[in-house]
């Protein structure tokens, strides 16, 4: 873009967003389309994809993985950018969810439509309990401790040889209908995305953001930040546990490797690529990164190298994240004006 003397680029909001008593004043069909368009694209897109992919069953199952990673990424994004707790322990949530769900399924014989919700709620509660003593930690210190949790959990299970030890829990029930297998993850992502987006814009969400910005001032406002953080961790870890529970039924197996670092790192990478702090961005990031990783599978050992290079490329060339960039381009237009 040529630098013009005595001119500067101006950005102007495209939509006429007027905030009046909590609703957007919507003036015309055009406006409505403008607002609803992108959201509808995402929702319909996700819902239709499995149908489009019926001839490529493998990609259908990849889509399921995309959704599972999306849940994790959204959970990370929520905790990191709306509460300020950067958790590198996504794998802990996955593992807890997977183990709870699979054990309930295998040991008690509960059907998966029962075990998944149970794992989500109780897994979330369990994770929150584990993280409770760490809530006063800040920044990297929290990040590192959270990173230790999945490592520790895997080690403990291994050392004590409980829950099937290194072999994992075998014989977990799989999805009986492929409809459920494909749509349950998608539906979870959409519903939870909607829920979280509402939440962060509600007053509670603002307070959480306040905790991130400046917890001292929140304390001075008479709010117990530990309770807030615990609540946030609960929400986020429930999401992670849901992902884990889904995963163990997709794989028909749960085991130690559910605590693997990949489940912590990939969602974070997706968040960075997609645009952190946008909640939709992480989903977008997963929609790109996971299939890319699958496409590269044929490369064999070179795959990870290629993947890392692509990832770095995204981060370097769109460091703000795709979603942030796209949203800006969509919502604003630019023009040159004289100074």
């Amino acid at each position: 873009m040529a630098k013009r003397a005595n001119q500067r680029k101006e950005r102007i909001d495209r939509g006429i967003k007027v905030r009046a008593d909590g609703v957007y004043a919507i003036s015309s069909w055009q406006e409505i389309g403008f607002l609803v368009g992108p959201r509808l694209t995402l929702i319909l897109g996700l819902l239709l994809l499995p149908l489009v992919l019926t001839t490529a069953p493998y990609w259908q199952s990849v889509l399921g993985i995309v959704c599972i990673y999306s849940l994790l990424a959204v959970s990370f994004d929520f905790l990191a950018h709306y509460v300020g707790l950067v958790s590198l322990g996504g794998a802990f949530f996955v593992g807890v969810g997977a183990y709870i769900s699979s054990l309930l399924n295998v040991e008690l014989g509960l059907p998966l439509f029962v075990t998944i919700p149970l794992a989500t709620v109780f897994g979330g509660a369990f994770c929150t309990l584990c993280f409770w003593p760490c809530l006063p930690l800040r920044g990297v210190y929290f990040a590192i401790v959270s990173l230790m949790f999945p490592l520790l959990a895997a080690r403990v299970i291994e050392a004590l040889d409980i829950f099937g030890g290194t072999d994992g829990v075998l014989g977990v029930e799989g999805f009986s209908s492929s409809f459920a297998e494909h749509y349950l993850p998608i539906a979870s992502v959409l519903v939870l995305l909607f829920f979280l987006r509402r939440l962060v814009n509600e007053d509670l969400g603002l307070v959480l953001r306040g905790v991130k910005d400046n917890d001292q001032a929140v304390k001075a406002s008479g709010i117990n930040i530990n309770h807030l953080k615990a609540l946030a961790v609960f929400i986020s870890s429930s999401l992670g546990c849901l992902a884990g529970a889904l995963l163990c039924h997709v794989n028909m197996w749960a085991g130690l490797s559910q605590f693997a670092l990949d489940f912590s790192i990939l969602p974070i990478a997706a968040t960075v690529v997609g645009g952190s702090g946008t909640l939709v961005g992480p989903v977008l990031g997963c929609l790109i990164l996971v299939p890319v990783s699958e496409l590269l599978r044929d490369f064999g050992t070179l795959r990870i190298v290629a993947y890392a290079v692509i990832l770095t490329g995204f981060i370097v060339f769109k460091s703000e994240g795709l979603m942030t960039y796209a949203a800006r381009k969509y919502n604003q237009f630019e023009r040159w004006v004289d100074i």
Partner: protein
Amino acid sequence: MFEANGLMVFYENMLALNNVSLACGNEQIIGVFGANSAGKSTLMYTLAGIMLDIRKKEQMAGGERITLRGEISFQGERVEDAKPSVRAKAGIILCPERRRIFPESSVLENLEIGSYLATREQAEETLEYVFEIFPALKAITRRLGGFLSGGEQQMLAIGRALMAQPKLLLLDEPLLGLSPAIQYLLAKSIKEIKEQRKTSVIVAEQYARPIMPIIDHGYILENGSAVVEGGRRELMDNPDVKNAYFGT
């Protein structure tokens, strides 16, 4: 020796500095006065080149767009495109607003870091000078910067700027949070710095009272424009200025 012409700064679509020109001769103290959001800090950042850095960071994060226009020259050379570190090497040192000291370094270390551009002898000599102006610092050399009280931090920030051997010292709200006695002493020292160390000083303040008596020339900023300009007496006699900056 230092001259800025037609400075304009936009934050996105907001005009923060509007065609501001300013000059500072050798061994002069220039005052820039203005109420809140008049654009004093913006001006200081622009002069020191920090604005370039802010713009770079904003671009990286994809946020708002900052536009800079205008010419700045220092000792006959154009510096408006020079990086802040280059300007600092040339002698333009900013003591930023809100006391940005290094919180995890001790007071002494803060000062040592400040002397990055100085020679060893200069550093030693200036260190003593700083302790002379702010004796309070001398007692607490080993305390971490972040633990200091507001006023102590302010003193430290000014001291640190001095350590960098400025030829042109830019002070952004130096009086903020200082006790009256120190305020007074600081004003006196600014004059001393100018005279003894052959340094020019530009001070941005909203609390004009202690500074006004020592300036050679002053500007009043309002909403990003320099509305009044003149020598010390001129400003002091201007009824509007008197009203706004000295109260009644």
